[in-house]
């Protein structure tokens, strides 16, 4: 298993394609990640504007297993180098739509790893958002790697002992 560590420059929400494009050209971090909120990064990728190849975040909230699989295959087909699976926000608000949480990250990872094994996602990296700081969350993070994740993603300044070589630290870009 190749080591995957370093920093992941994360652009959570594309509001303006030109602005995101400019950000991508500056190329901070060892890897780049575009979030699904806002304009889909697929639009930019199909337009050929992001280079070098970033990864696409796949948010599990409000997405059932069929849409998750579609997002995964779309990200691969559009030429993303990989996907980062995240649970997604749970937003309590007025006129709240029905929350959909069909898959958790472990279940989604299991589907993605199976797709890699059967050859439908060649050369595609799978990462999973994880958490440090408590015994159960670190056990879960280790388990992601045991199940076949290429790497885990932790937020800034966090680490899990023994997993440093498989951890990418996410540095979130805040749009001004």
């Amino acid at each position, binding site marked *: 298993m190749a080591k995957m560590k370093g920093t992941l420059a994360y652009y959570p929400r594309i509001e303006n394609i030109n602005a995101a494009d400019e950000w991508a050209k500056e190329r901070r971090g060892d890897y780049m990640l575009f979030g699904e909120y806002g304009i889909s990064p697929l639009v930019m990728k199909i337009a050929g504007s992001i280079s070098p190849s970033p990864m696409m975040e796949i948010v599990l*909230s409000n997405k059932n*297993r069929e849409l998750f699989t579609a997002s995964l295959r779309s990200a691969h087909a559009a030429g993303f180098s990989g996907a980062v699976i*995240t*649970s997604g926000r*749970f937003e*309590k608000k007025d006129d709240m739509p029905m*929350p959909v*949480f*069909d*898959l*958790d*990250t*472990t*279940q989604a990872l*299991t589907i993605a790893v199976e797709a890699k094994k059967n050859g439908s996602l060649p050369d595609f990296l799978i990462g*999973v*958002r*994880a*958490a440090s*700081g*408590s*015994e*159960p*969350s670190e*056990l*879960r993070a280790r*388990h992601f790697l045991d199940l076949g994740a290429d790497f885990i993603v932790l937020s800034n300044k966090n680490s899990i002992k023994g997993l440093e070589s498989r951890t990418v630290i996410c540095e979130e870009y805040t749009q001004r």
Partner: protein
Amino acid sequence: MIVTTKKDFNEILSNIADTKKIVIIGCAECAAVCQTGGSQQIAEMADALSEYNVLATISIQSPCDKRISTRDMKRIAEETGRADALIALACGSGVQALSEVTGKKVIAALDTHFLGMTERVGRFFERCSHCGYCVLNDTAGICPVTRCPRRVKNGPCEFINGEKCDVYPEKECVWHAIYQRLKEFGDENRFLNYHAPTRWEHHHSPQEAVWQK
């Protein structure tokens, strides 16, 4: 127990606008515990509807059980026959059972919320989502499907904040609680047991449990 709350009274009035003769039916089980359909609430409803011709009031032990509502409604069969509408202080199952049993127009006076654990009167908590695939034996008797807002079956999720939930910051993350409890029982080897996504083919509404010979 089925947890219910009273509908806004004006909503009930708007549903009986063209009605004169009514019968009021309460539930002596769950709705009585919730103080939404007990004897006192039946009397209050009758008072509030004093401008109507209230032909009868009745408290039924379990209106959702058609055997019981069929038997008990016979006691007021004559009044029911004359009524323009029945007002049911019962859960949605009770309302529909009464409708099927009597063939009458039944007005729901309550909103139905969840299957609740009763701590004491006025303190009801959802502990089971009747999901059809009980994971409690792997989760130290604490249901993550119900108590995690994201319904995470293999947790915790990455939003865990120390020991707390990100959605309900005052609450312990249910997966943190599960892990601590599993350790107490010496069952921590169950923590990573995989729970597959729910198979909805066995699980979507309307569900039925009909015994086959």
